[in-house]
């Protein structure tokens, strides 16, 4: 029997498991293949939903499903996080003390916000990267009656469109509440334009100008002085705030660093084969890789589809058939009722179009369709 072990039950691991279960349906039933998924949680969160929770447009219960309900029935699923990777033995050891052996291993453990890595950020800034933080942000926005809101993005962070989306949503949120004349929104960004993708920046900067949103570039958050309500940058500048919304820096999961698989929790990974460096039968996908591309759900989704096809081909044909070409697709909410998108790969930059209501409603629909997407049905 060929044993495929997937570590991580987020979007990447779940789509990969379901994709493989369909491609290897016959082999699973005949006992020639086994697929096992290990996760740290029995629940699956639709992470982009947290942005909407912060603005009171979704509630937390809407962004969770039972993980088991999302998986094809032939997948062996265990809530038993990995503690040790034993590559020489082709095995992992889990929190329960069990050992799981594999012929092929896929690691999709994801990433986590580490606001505490910047002095003052965890204590004084709001964000939308955990349920608790999103709810706290919701309350802070409800309570805010006027003043200067600063949006500060630290790196690396997942979902590269969030800094822009939060800023546009803040504008419309306070406009709807009739407080826009009392609210000043100031956007800061680490590099010398308002977004990492040049064409997105070319679209977003005039939008900021049109909406009266000020911005400052080459601003990397170094420290937050809560007493002075001031954010200090690595570049030597500072900005005062009344309410601070941060995009916190991220790291990979602790288990990756503890096992010395990669600095920062990012595993060195070939950007086309998705194979872990120096490991023939270990693959990495989603946020866990060190590939210089977006840490975003769609990246994990497209990587999972390539990897699903390749792992199935390895079982059936003995070799891989596809390469990952860097495909990413990101919606960009440009306010409460309009959106655009960026679609790109390693060789083709995005050409974002003016925002429309239609794209916004497509995003709203995707917020529901996600549960079919993660089952591998879309």
């Amino acid at each position, binding site marked *: 029997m060929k044993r495929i072990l997937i570590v991580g039950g987020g979007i990447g691991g779940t789509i990969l498991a379901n994709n493989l279960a369909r491609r290897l349906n016959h082999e699973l039933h005949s006992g020639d293949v086994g697929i096992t998924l290990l996760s740290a949680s029995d629940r699956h969160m639709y992470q982009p939903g947290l942005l909407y929770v912060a603005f009171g447009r979704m509630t937390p219960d809407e962004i969770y499903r039972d993980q088991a309900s999302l998986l094809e029935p032939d997948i062996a699923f265990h809530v038993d996080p990995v503690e040790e990777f034993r590559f020489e033995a082709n095995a992992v050891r889990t929190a329960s003390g069990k050992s799981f052996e594999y012929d092929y291993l896929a690691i999709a453990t994801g990433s986590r916000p580490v606001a505490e890595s910047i002095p003052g950020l965890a204590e004084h800034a709001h964000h939308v990267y955990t349920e608790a933080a999103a709810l706290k942000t919701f309350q802070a926005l409800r309570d805010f009656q006027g003043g200067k809101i600063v949006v500060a993005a630290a*790196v690396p962070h997942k979902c590269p469109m969030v800094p822009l989306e939060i800023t546009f949503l803040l504008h419309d949120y306070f406009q709807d509440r009739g407080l826009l004349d009392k609210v000043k929104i100031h956007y800061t960004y680490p590099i010398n334009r308002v977004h990492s993708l040049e064409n997105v920046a070319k679209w977003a900067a005039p939008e900021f100008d049109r909406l009266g949103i000020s911005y400052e570039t*080459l601003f990397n958050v170094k420290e937050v002085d809560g007493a002075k309500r001031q954010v200090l940058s690595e570049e030597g500048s500072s900005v005062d705030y009344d309410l601070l919304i941060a995009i916190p820096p991220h790291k990979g999961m602790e288990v990756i660093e503890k096992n010395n698989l990669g600095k920062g929790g990012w595993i060195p990974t070939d950007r086309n084969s998705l194979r872990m460096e120096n490991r023939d039968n270990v693959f990495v996908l989603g946020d866990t890789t060190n590939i210089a591309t977006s840490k975003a759900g769609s990246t994990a989704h497209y990587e999972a589809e390539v990897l699903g096809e390749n792992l199935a081909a390895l079982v059936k044909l003995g070799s891989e058939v596809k390469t990952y070409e860097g495909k990413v697709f990101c919606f960009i909410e440009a306010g409460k009722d309009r959106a655009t998108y960026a679609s790109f790969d390693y060789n083709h930059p995005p050409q974002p179009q003016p925002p429309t209501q239609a794209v916004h409603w497509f995003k709203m629909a995707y917020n529901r369709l996600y549960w079919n997407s993660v089952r591998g049905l879309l």
Partner: protein
Amino acid sequence: MQDPQILDARGATCPGPLMELIAHIKLMDVGEEVEVLTTDRGSATDIPIWLRKVGHECINMREDAGVYHIRVRKTK
């Protein structure tokens, strides 16, 4: 001399070479070097500007077959 780490940021990727470098430098020790690979001409200008602004060192830069190799040392 120790070989530098390689940061492969070739292609039209997001978040792009400078942001990848900013994240990567956080994980380096003072004195360590990294070589950024990028096909983005703008990064050949942007990266040295940022390095000067925050005080890290751009050791050298060369272009080879459309790929810029920018060698950086973390200094603080």
